[in-house]
């Protein structure tokens, strides 16, 4: 099948459609606008629902309603809008409702700008809203991978009955790349006997609720969430290893900045430096395995489009065994290959 040229933001929508999602609620914000543009046209054609809410607060609660009704449902936004959705995400977790949330991250804090950034890493991987919880966080680095990971996000959401966040950034959302749209495997649509669809002959009422008024009962519920998160950690860690063979210096980067990192690895290898790259694909659960097997590594160099967030998870995993160096550009600035390469040379100690 010939490849199709597609924009990253459209690919989020395409991945959702491939996953069998036919319902989208959202509110306009740059730089994710092409996601609602794409779905406003495609979903009605497929007999689905596209609805523009009055706010991100409403959008995430519409998601809550459609998820409670047993449907695969998507919302997308960009950093400030995702902040507004945090209350709803906490309730979705508390009610164990599956859904997919796309965050095309932009520069912050506050209104910030619409340039690519990774400043929402903490918000995405550490819970984000109130209470003690996690969501699975997927970080694609190409338009093709946006389609594949958005599709996967729906399967994981249903499997664990938990929201899944897919993060991109302004570059990934706006750039076009050729993609293969050939039909892959069918989405894993599963029964949802817990859904509030009206009794319709069912004897037991279904109730979707995050309230657990007795502390001991709420502790038990939190512990069931903890068991779910442990299962995710054991089964869902995903990463890409790039030239890790005998690497002494390993870049760690996700999303757009991982592409820059790969170009830096290529250049370093061509100049005889033993440099590799780990690209976390799941930001949560954070991929611990590739760090466990890298015995030759002298320094991890963490690259981010922020002031240093993922670097904390790298340090937790490495736990003092290996040096960790950070290079980041916050506020919507993307470093060039040369800038990153020069940082790398400082670490390596080459003049």
């Amino acid at each position, binding site marked *: 099948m010939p490849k199709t040229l597609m924009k990253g933001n459209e690919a989020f929508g395409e991945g959702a459609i491939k996953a069998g999602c036919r*319902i989208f*609620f959202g509110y306009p914000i740059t730089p994710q606008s092409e996601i609602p543009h794409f779905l406003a046209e495609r979903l009605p054609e497929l007999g689905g*629902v596209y*609805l523009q*809410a*009055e*706010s991100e*607060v*409403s*959008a995430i*609660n*519409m*998601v*809550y*309603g*459609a*998820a*409670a*009704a047993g*449907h695969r*449902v998507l919302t997308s936004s960009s950093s400030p809008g995702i902040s507004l959705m945090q*209350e*709803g995400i906490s*309730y979705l977790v508390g*009610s164990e409702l599956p859904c997919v949330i796309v965050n095309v991250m932009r520069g912050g804090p506050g209104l910030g700008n619409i340039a690519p950034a990774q400043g929402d890493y903490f918000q995405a991987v550490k819970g984000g809203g109130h209470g003690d919880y996690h969501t699975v966080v997927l970080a694609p680095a190409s338009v093709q991978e946006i389609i594949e990971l958005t599709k996967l996000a729906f399967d994981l959401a249903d499997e664990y009955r938990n929201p899944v966040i897919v993060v991109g950034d302004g570059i990934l959302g706006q750039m076009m790349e050729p993609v293969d749209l050939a039909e892959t495997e069918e989405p894993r649509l599963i029964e949802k006997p817990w859904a*509030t*669809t*009206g*009794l*319709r*002959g069912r004897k037991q*009422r*279904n*109730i*979707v*609720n*995050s*309230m657990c008024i007795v502390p001991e009962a709420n502790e038990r519920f939190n512990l069931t969430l903890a068991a779910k998160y442990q299962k995710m950690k054991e089964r869902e860690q995903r990463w890409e290893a790039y030239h890790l063979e005998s690497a002494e210096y390993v870049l760690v980067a996700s999303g757009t900045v991982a592409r820059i990192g790969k170009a830096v690895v290529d250049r370093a290898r061509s100049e005889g430096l033993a440099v590799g790259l780990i690209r976390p694909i799941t930001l949560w659960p954070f991929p611990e395995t590739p760090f466990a097997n890298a015995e030759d590594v002298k320094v991890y160099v963490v690259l981010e489009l922020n002031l240093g967030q993922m670097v904390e998870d790298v340090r937790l995993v490495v736990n003092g065994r290996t040096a960790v160096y950070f290079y980041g550009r916050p506020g919507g600035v993307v470093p060039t290959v040369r800038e990153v390469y020069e940082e790398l040379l400082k670490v390596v100690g080459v003049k």
Partner: protein
Amino acid sequence: MALIFKRPESLTEKPFHYCPGCTHGIIHRIVAQVIDELGVRENTVGICPVGCAVFAFEYFNVDMIQAAHGRAPAVATGVKRSLPDRVVFTYQGDGDLAAIGTAETIHAAARGEKITAIFVNNAIYGMTGGQMAPTTLLGQKTTTTPFGRDKERNGLPLRVAEMLSTVDGAAYVARVSVHNPGNAVKAKQAVKKAFECQIRGDGFSIVEVLSTCPTNWGLSPVEALKWLEENMLPHYPLGEFKMPAGEASAC
């Protein structure tokens, strides 16, 4: 012997947790009776609020969803848009619907969402300890207006039914009360019309129900009913503010 009174099938056997003299119980019963009479119990999804009615999912014998504070109309929208042939209702208090959830309420109405909102107005926040609500009357003492609600300091009470009657997507808007049996009968007629309006697909329907809060008003149950009649009715007149064409008045 003929059975002339029983618990509606749309109510569970769970005893209400509401305070003595609170009229939530009457309103729950009215909604349940209407669901029974329309024969839609097995096709209904209810959304309960944050506030005194947060436990409504334990009382309505239908599939129920508990929503975040003020978000019930958005949650109901999500259910109704994805399951358009179900009957979807929200049950919300005045803090929930008319303060934190004002945007969700107005825009659900503006979109003409085919849902029914039961809006319980008791002019105070009950669950959190009797604070000022958007509907608290001028001069009314609450835990956050200890000298009485003052226009300059606290602003003026909001008339929700009148406001929503100006919204094109709202098909049926009524205000009723349950402070005596005659009004409770009219309230039930209005709730039934609101559900029928949804089932016909006319658009958004809402019934504002004036309700008592003896505990936080600091009155006995009987005094509270009298206080509602003497103080709330003048500011919150009863009636149907908007009806689909051709409908006869219920109130």
